[in-house]
Structures are given as C-alpha cells and as structure tokens.
C-alpha cells in the first residue's frame, strides 16, 4: 500500500481577513518531486510554513508523515531549506552543520562529509559571515540532507545558484527521491523546474489552479502552436494566400493554430512542396503555460 508522505485537504488560512490559502488540497508520495509554482504572494511560503508547523491554519487537514505538522514526530522526519538560508555569521560552516547534526541526534563528525556533498568542503572552516549568498544556500542544502528525511520542504532552493550548481542540486534531489524521499519545492518560474520534477502544482492567489505533469498542463492549457514558414524566393505571396491567417514577418510567414489543427496545417504546408524552403514548429513555451494558469483568475 502506498501512503502519502504529505497529504493536505481543503487547507484554508487567512491573515487578518485576507485569504492566503483557499481550500488547497495536494498530496506528495514517497519518491515524488513536486514543484509548487506561483507569483510572490500566491501562498507558497504560507503553505510551506503550515506544513512545517511554523504557523497555525484555520481549517482543513494537514498530515505530515502520519503526524500533525510541527509535532515532534513530524519534525524528526522533515527537512527544510528556507528561501534565504541564514546562519550565525560567527560560526564556521562545519560548526553550524555539526550543531544541526547534534540537534537531529546524529554524529557531528559527519559535518565535513555533508559539506563535501554540496561542494563546500574547502570553505568548511571559514566563518559563514564571509560566505557568498550561493555558499550560504549550500550550507542550507547540506543541513537539509541530515539524517534520512522522509519529506524535504525547499523554499526556492535554486534562487542564487548558478546554472551548474543548479544542475548539481537537481542531481542531488534525484538521488534523494530515488531513496524514497518526498520533495516539495517552490519556484517562481516553470523554466527552472521543467524536466526535474514529477508533478507541478500552480498556486494563484491562494488557490490551486492546476496540478499534474508538464504534459498534463500542456494539454489542459491547450495553447496555440506557432509555425514559422520560410518561403523559397518569390513564393511568399502565393503561400500567404494558401495559408489563411498567416502573417508576414519580413520575408517569412508566421501562423498560429490550435493543438488539434496542428497536423492538418502541417499537411497543407507540406502540400506546397518545393515552394517552402523551411518550417519551424514552436510549441507553447513553459512561460506561456505558466502565465496561462497563474493569471487566469481576474488578472
């Protein structure tokens, strides 16, 4: 039997009468990487803080590893990486991680090895006050790897990381997920999480507006496909007449069509034979899909 590591149903939270989360439901299974997307103020951090037991909620149910959020049993199995990971500047990276290891009942001797895993072993004996933002983020990641957390809650973990570090970070997550950890991470942009997550959850103004795989979201959004046709010299006008709705862009032609018309339109273009020099088909971008969902409500 597969039990969810995180199960939230009809979660509602208001701050001074303003709804921050409105009947939000979601589940994250063991080994699943779920990405929580939304604008600033969409409710991502609020949702995470409730899961961690840092703030109370108004109604609904939240089940974290079979326990109440914030209970000792839940905290023992959940790791958290805050959005801007901060630590005491007077401690070294090694001392800080050793401290967190002790709090989780692990041997503080593992600190160096953990810092090595996030590529920070050379700076381990320097004070955190001298670290860059990206290095502090790595210390934050190292502490989230302590023990064997069943649920990782990562608040914008890749902000401040360069592209190479970001790839290393997702490789680490893949390893954790393969060992059965459930991962809930948040991000501003769909482009950042694209292929590295199993499930995408889009929050907009406290409401869950879309859930599913990237393929699911693509189908549900049903955004038009753009085609870019390059005619052989002198045939532009003829092609424009053959393709209703096409717009001239310089010497080329651009047209958009729905997902279901895509093959028909392609057939018509190939029917033009040697008059067409090249064709490029662009599916809706990740940004387009994300804005489609996150701006649907009254924006």
């Amino acid at each position, binding site marked *: 039997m597969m039990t969810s590591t995180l199960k939230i149903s009809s979660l509602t939270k208001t701050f001074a009468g303003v709804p921050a989360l409105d009947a939000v439901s979601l589940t994250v299974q063991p080994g699943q990487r779920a990405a929580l997307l939304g604008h600033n103020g969409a409710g991502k951090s609020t949702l995470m803080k409730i899961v961690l037991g*840092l703030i109370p909620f108004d109604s609904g149910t939240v089940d974290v590893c079979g326990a109440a959020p914030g209970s000792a049993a839940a905290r023992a199995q959940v790791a958290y990486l805050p959005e801007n990971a901060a630590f005491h500047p007077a401690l070294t990276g090694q001392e800080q991680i050793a401290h967190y290891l002790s*709090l989780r009942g692990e041997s503080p001797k593992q600190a160096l090895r953990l810092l090595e895993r996030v590529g920070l072993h050379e700076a381990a004996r320097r004070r955190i006050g001298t670290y860059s933002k990206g290095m502090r983020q790595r210390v934050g990641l190292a502490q989230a790897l302590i023990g064997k957390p069943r649920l990782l809650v990562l608040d914008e973990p890749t902000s401040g990381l360069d592209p190479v570090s970001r790839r290393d970070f997702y490789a680490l997550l893949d390893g954790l997920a393969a060992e059965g950890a459930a991962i809930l991470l948040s991000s501003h942009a769909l482009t950042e999480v694209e292929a590295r997550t199993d499930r995408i959850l889009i929050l907009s103004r406290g409401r869950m507006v879309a859930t599913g795989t990237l393929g699911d979201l693509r189908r549900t959004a049903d955004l038009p496909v753009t085609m870019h046709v390059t005619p052989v010299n002198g045939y532009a006008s003829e092609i424009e007449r053959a393709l209703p709705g096409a717009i001239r862009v310089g010497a080329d032609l651009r047209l958009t069509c729905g997902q279901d018309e895509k093959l028909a339109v392609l057939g018509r273009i190939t029917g033009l034979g040697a008059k067409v020099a090249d064709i490029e088909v662009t599916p809706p971008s990740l940004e387009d899909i994300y804005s489609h969902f996150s701006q649907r409500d009254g924006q």
Partner: protein
Amino acid sequence: MIGRILATAGTEFRIALRNRWVAIAVVLMALFSLVLSAAGSAPTGGLGVDRLSVTVASLTSLAVYLVPLVALLMSFDAVAGEVERGTLPLLLTYPVARVEILLGKLLAHLAVLTIAVAVGYGLAAAAALWVDPDSASGLPSLLRLGWTSILLGATFLGAGYALSSLARRPSGAAGLAMGLWLGAVVLYDLGLLAAVVADNGGWFTTDLFPFALLANPADAFRLFNLAASEATAAAAGVAGAANSIPLWQSAASVLLWPLLALVLATAAFRKVTP
C-alpha cells in the same frame, strides 16, 4: 533532550567567545572587583572583622548592579537576534523543544557569567588574603556570594530572554532590558526608600516593606548575603533596615527567581511565531 541542550550550549558558548562577551564580562568583573578591594581597605581596622568579609560586603553592592547588567547584555539578543538574522524559522523546524533552546542558551551564558564571577571574586580574595592572612575566615561568605551571584545572573538572563521574545527586534529588546535594569536595580530601591521615609514608621514600613524587598531578586540577593555575612555591621541603608527578615525567606527568593524567570521566558518564547 540533554544532548540537544548541550549542543546548543556548546554552540552558544562558542558564539559568546567570538563575540567577545566572555572577554568583556571577565574584564568588567575583574576590574570592578580589584577597584573595590583597593578602595575597601581603609575602614578595616575600626570594624574588627577580617579584610575579606569587608571586601565581600562591597562586592555584594557591586554584584547587585553589575551581574544583572552583564546578564541582560548577554541575553537581550537571544531570541530577537535569531528573528532578525532569519535563523529562527529553520531552527524551529528541528526536533528541538523551545525550552531546550532556552536551556542551552542559559547554560552557555551562565558559564560565561561563572567564569567572570570566579575571576573577579578570585582576584578580590587573593588581594585580601595577601594583605590580611586572617581573611580565610571570610571565604565561606565569598563562596555564598559566588553562587548567589550566579543565581542572580540566571534570573536576569531568563528575564532577558523573556524581553527578547516579547520585543522580537534587537533594538526594542535592548531598550526593554535597560529599562528592566534601571527599574529593578536602581529605581525600585529609591522608590522603596522614598515610601519608607514618607510612611514614617507606619504600616508600609512594618508590613509591606519586607515583602517588597523579597519580591525583587536583586534586593533579596543583597539581603541574603548581608544578613548571612559577618559584615552586617558594615552594611547600611535599605539592607540595614530589613534585618528582621528571616534568612530562609531571602534564600527562598534567591532560589525561586531563576525558575520563575525561566518559566516566564519559555512562555514568552512559545508565543513567538516565526
């Protein structure tokens, strides 16, 4: 639980070392103790008591001001600083109870205070023994002053954590801490003195005044040390007027205040939402 408290205490002590709190506290206590033992050397002959007992009486008056001050300076940042640095939310997601965090900080700060008190009082004792070999008879009262100073420190550390939790901003917490110091250590006694003078031996002086002294941890500390010391004769003012209070009552106040302060601090810390 013990492991988490000790880990927190170890980290906090390291931070106190690097932030120079250990050095500041030790230098403060050493300096004031030495100045007092030098200044207190004059009246010894007339009182017929050993040199160290006289030093203890002066040290008691010093500790009443200095120990709460050092304790509040170390503690006002404890919770508010974590809030400001943004380290508190992460810490609270760890399987560590809030009371364990406070106990760890308390242990570390008490260690700093103990070192400072030991160095300061030790220097004063050494100076007294060097001048007057009979001073050894004053050692028990010095020891008593030592452990009660640490308990007094614990009370004000707890009060500092409580204020730090209530203020949630280091600047606000610092203001509250200085207000508490001024109120509990300076103005409280002045107020009582004014009331006693105005009352002119009436109900306030006989019935309420002793309780008012016991209710203030700093006054209870002074009462206990002066009443138990051989050098009561050297004491004057408020303490002299309250000789009627039994020793066990001031001892109970000295012992109970640290616990009460810790309970208050824990209650205030529990109310902090990161």
